[in-house]
């Protein structure tokens, strides 16, 4: 049977068919839907959200050592977090097969950089496969697990946004139950002390040789002969783009297994074509190795290394072809940047924060990163997940030491706090820091589309579980109770007071804003705690409106301005933030 699946859905299906029984991930675009689509196979596979990618990989490693086929999934920057266990698991090797999915984001559709994670396979010396559509995404999961078990290596399955989020037709197969391998205690293999690891490193180098042999033999790396004037070495989505441009006018060496590279096969191919192009997205990963092996080819001289590739770029770069396009004046078009939703609980807090003078605000990765946009503009930095707290601490210490009179506020979300904010907060407490930490707890992982986390009270598979209490957690690591402020972010006075109070403390202080994301499907616990959500909305009394535009400074997309302020009744959820902001009481509540 054929189904129309995204690459992410296909990977999930692949895990099911390949007999995987353990899967873990931390949500991150473009990888999130992999675990979401594994979760429904509850009867066959155990799956969970981990608090961060390092934990996700480490649990998968545990399952693999125990003998189960295991999968961990994350976005490209997540692999940086998981790099530590990856490099050592490369040394020990596996028991049950292990696949690490890295979903890279060329073009940075929703990421802070566009690193090319193929280098991780080379760096950590593990095998790598690169599918070029959903069918391969599914099939390669199984192949990767077989390679993993046969060659005793973790396997990196590298996807990119266009693979993750494009739907193509996939022929489904049956699940093959592989069961669990016997676990035998094996200290020299699984205990990476220096003495053991030295021996293991020799095995790793040996393994790479065998893998290269496999790479030259496997039909994951296949030649498509057509005209031999132009030869193209390519992998992943770049293969599809190359086919789109050249069709049958060129010959292809399509690489599905890309670490180690099949150098012998590449040489043979290179010898038989007149001009050899390497068409790959982002970095010259293959090109560098080919050139080092003395193979003459054209790569990044013509194909850009910045941004997402597409057929147009290739056609222009190599064939100097450009399609005629319709001319029009771009000045007419107004930008449409993403915004915090109408009624978003972060907005009230950011609005009050934006009024504070002489503070540096260190931000983090999540919906609330949008608090950096106009008109709130309340964020000075955004580096990586968790860095709001730790970078905030560093900045505060630097200001203090150099006698700069400035306070620092680090802003982080609930899921992100569990991910890696907590370690930064421990650093603040331990090192007598004074930066204020704000945990914007909207009761869910918002940005990636509502995944459960250790604070929500539910697991990925929908079971009820213990919800970690953030204020108590902060207290447990040493923040004094009197320096913890739990507030409702929709109450502007409360926000203002908490910010001032926290800033006045000489000791580590934490503000926790608690209100569910406006798009969240409320749990029974949420309803108990926050109520059902009112049906009333806000409206502008035009008589009273003095056209001061202050309400528009809250950045709510439901408020527009044309001589007087106006509230879009379809969008407003009655959060009251604008009502409190209006100095002339021109905003009123209407409805039931």
């Amino acid at each position, binding site marked *: 049977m054929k189904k129309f699946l995204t690459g992410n859905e296909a990977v999930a299906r692949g895990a099911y068919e390949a007999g995987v029984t353990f899967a873990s991930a931390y949500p991150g675009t473009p990888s999130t839907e992999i675990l979401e689509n594994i979760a429904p196979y509850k009867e066959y596979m155990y799956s969970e959200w981990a608090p961060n990618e390092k934990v996700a990989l480490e649990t998968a490693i545990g399952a693999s050592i125990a003998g189960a086929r295991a999968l961990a999934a994350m976005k490209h920057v997540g692999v940086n977090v998981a790099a530590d266990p990856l490099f050592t698991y490369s040394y020990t090797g596996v028991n049950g097969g292990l696949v690490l999915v890295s979903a890279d984001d060329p073009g940075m559709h929703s990421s802070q950089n566009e690193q090319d994670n193929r280098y991780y396979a080379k760096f950590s010396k593990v095998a790598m496969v690169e599918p070029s559509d959903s069918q391969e995404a599914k099939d390669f999961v199984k192949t990767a697990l077989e390679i993993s078990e046969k060659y005793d290596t973790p396997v990196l399955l590298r996807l990119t946004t266009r693979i993750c989020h494009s739907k193509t037709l996939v022929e489904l197969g049956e699940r093959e139950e592989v069961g669990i391998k016997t676990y035998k205690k094996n200290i020299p293999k699984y205990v990476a002390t220096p003495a053991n690891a030295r021996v293991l490193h020799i095995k790793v180098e040996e393994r790479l040789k065998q893998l290269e042999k496999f790479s030259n033999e496997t039909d994951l790396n296949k030649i498509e002969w057509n005209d031999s004037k132009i030869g193209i070495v390519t992998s992943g989505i770049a293969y599809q783009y190359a086919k789109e441009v050249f069709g049958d006018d060129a010959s292809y060496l399509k690489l599905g297994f890309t670490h180690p590279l099949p150098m012998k096969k590449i040489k043979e191919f290179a010898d038989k074509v007149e001009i050899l192009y390497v068409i790959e997205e982002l970095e010259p990963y293959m090109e560098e190795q080919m050139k080092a092996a003395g193979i003459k080819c054209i790569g990044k001289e013509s194909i850009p290394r910045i941004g997402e590739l597409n057929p147009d770029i290739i056609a222009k770069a190599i064939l100097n072809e450009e399609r005629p396009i*319709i001319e029009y004046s771009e000045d007419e078009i107004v930008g449409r940047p993403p915004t915090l939703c109408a009624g978003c609980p972060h907005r009230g807090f950011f609005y009050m924060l934006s009024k504070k003078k002489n503070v540096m605000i260190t931000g983090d990765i999540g919906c609330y990163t949008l608090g950096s946009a106009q008109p709130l503009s309340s964020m000075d930095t955004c580096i990586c997940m968790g860095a709001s707290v730790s970078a905030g601490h560093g900045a505060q210490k630097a200001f203090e030491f150099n006698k700069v009179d400035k306070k620092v506020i680090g802003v982080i979300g609930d899921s992100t706090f569990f991910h890696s904010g907590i370690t930064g907060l421990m650093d603040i407490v331990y090192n007598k820091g004074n930066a204020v930490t704000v945990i914007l707890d909207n009761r869910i992982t918002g940005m990636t589309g509502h995944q459960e986390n250790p604070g929500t009270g539910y697991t990925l598979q929908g079971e009820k579980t213990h919800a970690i209490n953030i204020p108590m957690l902060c207290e447990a690591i040493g923040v004094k109770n009197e320096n913890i402020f739990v507030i409702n972010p929709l109450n502007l006075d409360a926000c203002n007071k908490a910010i001032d109070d926290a800033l006045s403390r000489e000791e580590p202080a934490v503000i926790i804003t608690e209100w569910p994301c406006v798009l969240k499907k409320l749990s029974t616990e949420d309803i108990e705690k926050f109520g059902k959500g009112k049906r009333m909305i806000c409206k502008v009394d035009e008589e009273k409106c003095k056209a001061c535009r202050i309400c528009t400074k809250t950045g709510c997309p439901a*408020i527009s301005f044309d001589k007087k302020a106006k509230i879009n009744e379809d969008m407003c959820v009655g959060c009251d933030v604008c009502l409190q902001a209006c100095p002339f009481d021109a905003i009123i509540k209407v409805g039931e």
Partner: protein
Amino acid sequence: MKEVKNILLVGVGGQGIILASKILSQGLISAGYDVKMSEVHGMAQRGGSVTTQVRFGKKVYSPIIGKGQADIVVSFEKMETLRWLDHLKKNGKIVVNDYEIPSAPILVGDAKYPQNLIDILKEKADTTVFKAAEIAKELGNIKTMNVVMLGALTKAMGLTDVDWETIVRSNVKEKFVDMNINALRKGMEQVK
């Protein structure tokens, strides 16, 4: 490559574009085509500009549509048509919903919503304009706007040999089936 057709659906996050594209793709698959569809995720969903791309034909390689390549641009929001106009083929078609969603810079008064948009579009390409939002509201729910658009699209593309009603039926909740079938028909009626 020549037999591959390209459809670009553009609009704003929350307008139901992804569902419309899904239904469209299922219809094309049932008609025996190879289909690839590319969707946008992440940041763009928070009120940002959204596009999905559907390509179909005997054999499709790239899942994305390049500039100057779309046979038809289906626009759920007026201004978004202009943003994507460079993707339309020289002799391509536009199906546009006469509906405005002001973006953040417009809301705060930093910019003005472009004037005479429809005239500009008509000057540039073969443009069909209609008010899907009003039609959807008349049918009882503005959310069916996406299916109204879908109806117009399938008609404009001449994809009339597919049983769209069955596919719509299997993609919406039981109690919304009738409303959506009506929306589909109304949409088809909009295009001559």
